Structures are given as C-alpha cells and as structure tokens.
C-alpha cells in the first residue's frame, strides 16, 4: 500500500503541475499513513519533488517522443514496483490522454477534475467538478486501486521538505502505438493550461487587427492569451485559444476578459479561475455577475492605460 504520483516534465524540467500532484499525493499518503513515490520521464532534477513530500522518485529515460501507450506502461510498472494503491495525476492534455489506459490496465477506478483532498478513505470519496464547473459531485472510488486526476490549481502547492531518493527505473515499456510525424509547438509562449494568468478577448475587440492590445497586456503580465468561441469561429484567433464549455477549460489564478459578454457557455469553462476581471462597455453584460472586479468602459481606452500602468507597476518591482 503506497501512493504514486505521475510528475510531468517539459524538456527535462518538472512542470508546476508535478509539484501540485506531489502536494496532493503527500496529503493522501499522510491520511493513509504511507509513503509517497513519484514516477517521471526524462526528468533532469527529480530530487526537487522532495520539497513537496516525495520520498522516492523513479525516473524512466526514453528517447522517443511522448506516446500515451508507452508512458502508460511505464506508470503501471512503477505502480507495481512500489505497490501503489492510489495514483495521482494532473489534468494536462497528456495526463488525460494516457491515464484511461493506466486505469484499464490496472482495473483501477479513475476520477478526473478532483478539486480537494479525499473526504475520507473508507469510503474513499472525492469531490470533483462536473457540468463544466456548474456543480460538484461527491464520488466514491469503489475499486481497490484508485486513480485521482487533480484539477489544475485546485489544490495548490504545499511544501513538506523530504529527502528524495532518485533512482533510474527501466521497466519493459510497451511499443509505441502511433508514429509522431511532426510537432508544432510554440516553446516561447505560456500555454492556457499552465498559465497563472490568462488574458482573453471577445467579439467586442472588433477584429484581429486589434489583438496587439491583448498580446501586449498578456506579455506585460506573463500571461497566456485566450478568446471566446465566435472569435475563433471567425478565424480572428486560432481554435486552440477558444475557451469555454466547448473549448479549453481555464483554471488560472487570474482571468481577465475584455469585450467578452459572459455567455453561460463561456463562463462555464472559465469559472474555476480564482479571480476574474471583466472590462466591458456594457454595464448589463452578464460577465459582471460572474466577475470579482470589473471596469465599465471602452476597451480601446481602458486597456492601453492598463498596460501602461502595469508596466510602471512591474518596473517598481
């Protein structure tokens, strides 16, 4: 009986979500009175997981590109090696891709979008968001082996420094199921999934030529850029930036919506962001009911001022 977390890396570096799943895993391990291990792929500094309570990190080296089947087999082998009965994973696109395979491989009960530490061990019940953030469910994992997918930014980082033993782990891995032909990824931009702050533009911005404002504000804040559905449907911005019920979910610390009306489908996808700011010239826009802070005003006047003042604020440090 132990707890295993799958700690993700990007180009060898542990992602923030890796520390969040470690923090979550530590809370579960403490409840169970057991130890916490992690499995990583190609991590250069796996010992950093010790800061969040991981006592042992098993690092698998692979030369191939990410492959769901290959990674799933590595995670299963690690779970077996440490006798894990609970596995904790993040909500990244890759984790969501591979974890169903792990769950079927181990006959484990898998629950996604979990927002808090388990409510109890017996029954093993977790709180998860559903109906695209319009509700929560209390769900019991009845299978003996359990996998928890933690919602981004829902649990946070909790430091619990532990000596972390890093070892090379070389299990027999599955053969890749797909051949990666090409990867197009902007490496210099923060992604919506990983961003602490997201700046989002809607139809109120009138056209793609005005997006420099959104990008400028995002750059000033180190934020990712996003948009409403019609904006991506009209081709002003790529589909990958569309957020909401039928787009990407956003669970950032700060979400700034500019010229977005706040339709129910938009709000559903961004509601788990902690702090929401709206800038809209229509005081009746529904977004004002969902936001924490708001400015009623013309985006073309407010946003340039905001960028200028934020630059000054950042310059002060």
């Amino acid at each position: 009986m132990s707890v295993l977390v799958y700690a993700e890396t990007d180009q060898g570096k542990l992602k923030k979500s890796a520390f969040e799943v470690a923090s979550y895993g530590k809370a579960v391990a403490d409840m169970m009175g057991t130890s916490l291990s992690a499995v990583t792929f190609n991590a250069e500094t796996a010992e950093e997981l010790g800061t969040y309570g991981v006592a042992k990190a098993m690092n698998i080296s692979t030369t191939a590109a990410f492959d769901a089947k290959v990674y799933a087999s590595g995670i299963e082998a690690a779970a077996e090696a440490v006798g894990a009965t609970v596995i904790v994973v993040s909500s990244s696109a890759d984790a969501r891709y591979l974890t169903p395979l792990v769950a079927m491989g181990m006959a484990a009960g898998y629950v996604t979008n979990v927002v808090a530490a388990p409510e109890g061990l017996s029954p093993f019940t977790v709180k998860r968001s559903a109906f695209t953030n319009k509700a929560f469910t209390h769900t019991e994992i009845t299978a003996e082996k359990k996998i928890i997918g933690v919602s981004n930014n829902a649990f946070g980082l909790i430091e619990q420094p532990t000596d972390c033993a890093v070892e090379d782990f070389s299990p027999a891995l599955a053969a890749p199921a797909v051949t990666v032909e090409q990867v197009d990824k902007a490496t210099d931009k923060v992604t919506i999934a990983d961003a602490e702050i997201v700046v989002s533009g809607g139809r109120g911005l009138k056209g793609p030529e005005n997006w420099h404002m959104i990008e400028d504000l995002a750059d000033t804040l180190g934020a990712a850029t996003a948009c409403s559905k019609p904006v991506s449907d009209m081709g002003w911005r790529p589909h990958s930036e569309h957020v909401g019920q039928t787009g990407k979910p956003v669970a950032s610390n700060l979400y700034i919506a500019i010229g977005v009306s706040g339709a129910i489908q938009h709000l559903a996808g961004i509601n788990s962001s902690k702090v929401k700011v709206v800038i809209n010239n229509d005081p009746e826009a529904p977004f004002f009911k969902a936001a924490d802070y708001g400015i009623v005003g013309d985006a073309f006047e407010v946003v340039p001022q905001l960028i200028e003042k934020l630059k000054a604020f950042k310059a002060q440090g």
Partner: protein
Amino acid sequence: MKILVCISHVPDTTSKINFVDNDTQFDTNGVQYIINPNDEFGLTRAMWFKEKDGAVVDVINVGGAETESTLRKALAIGADAAIRIDTAALEASQVAKEIATVIAAGGYDLIIAGRESIDYNGGMVPGMIAALMDASYVNNCVGLEISDGKATAIREIDGGKETVSTQLPLVIGAQKGLVEESDLKIPNMRGIMMARKKPLTVQPASAVSPLATTSTYEKPAPKGEVKLVDADKVDDLIDLLHKEAKVI
C-alpha cells in the same frame, strides 16, 4: 470502412443545473437534451467519410429509453443505424466496457467518441475503449485523414499540435477543430423522415459493475458582488489585484 460514433445524451449548454432528492439526482425538469457537442464534431467527420468513401456509420449510446430522441437526431443527421445499450450510464469504465462489447462483435475500423461529455466531464471513455480493444488511439483529435487502412491524425497538445500516423482500428477523442463549425448539420425534414425508418436496435447490457459511484451533488457557493473600478482609475484595479486578490 465501418465507423462507430459514441453519442452521449447531455443537457443543452444553457440548462440550469439543479439537483433533487436531497441532492442525489440531477433535476431533469425543463431540461432540453442534445448530442454532446464533442460527439457532434465527431459525427460530422464520420459523415464526411460516408460521403467521400462510402463509409458505413453506426451510432451508439449507453442509456435508458429517454436517450432515443438523441440517437434519432444522429440518424437524421445521416448515420445509418443506431444501437442503444439498455442500462443507465453510471461511470466511464462501465460505459466503455459496454461499448467495447459491441465493437468486438461489429468489426469497426474507426471508433469516434467525444473528448469529454459536457455533463460529467470525465474525459476517459475514448481512452478506455482503446485500452480494452488494444487499438490505436488519438485524443483531442482536430484532424483525421484515412487512406489504405492508414490514418493520419492531428492531436491538440498544450501549446500546439502534433501530427501522428497510425494503423486501424483507431479510436479518437473528437473535439472542436475536427470539422469547421459551419460544417455541423441541422437535420432537415427529409433526414428526419428517413431517420424514422432506420434501425435503432436495443441491446441488453452485459452487467458490468462500475469502479466509482456518485452519491451526492453540490452547487457552487453563490458569488459575491463584483467590485467596480472607475474606467479612468485603472491604478485602483492594479492595487486591488496586488494587495487584495494577491494575484499580481
């Protein structure tokens, strides 16, 4: 080519979400049901393969009789036949196992499921089906071409896209981008008439037991009032975000 599209019957995106019976049941009162949007993108791509290559397209749902209107809509959009597995959908692994049984008997080359349903947001059915079939699998699929039994698919990844090639049988998790919004089909009168004559087969469930069960539901706490800042005092907003909200 034989395609199976998994159809989830979900509340319309504008539905008010409420619960009854001491928060143990979803309140269906006044709720309109639709084809899960991610499944509809997948179904629309399947129609493209039908028109271009003469693919046969079946649709499947695991659920009670109340889901048949949604399956009929999929038939009106153009699917050839529908299958309903007659049992309540309780949990992803149970749904995936029921569907895998049909796939094993039906000899499908391509299985399309939505990346996630907009009600339970589990996001695991396509992956679980792939695992059960030991088939190729591409999630968050935003592009798919098939020729000579080989598939080229585009997967949306955090921060970009990845193009992969693979063999059939293939399972994809469909989402927006797989087809253009403007390609989505609203059933016309002829489609609706034809759908009435198409087969909708009800099959008994194979009594799979779920690995997780939901006992109660909860609605988020009501939100406090928005704090308004004057349009010519953006400094105040920066101050609030820094000192009060502590997010910058």
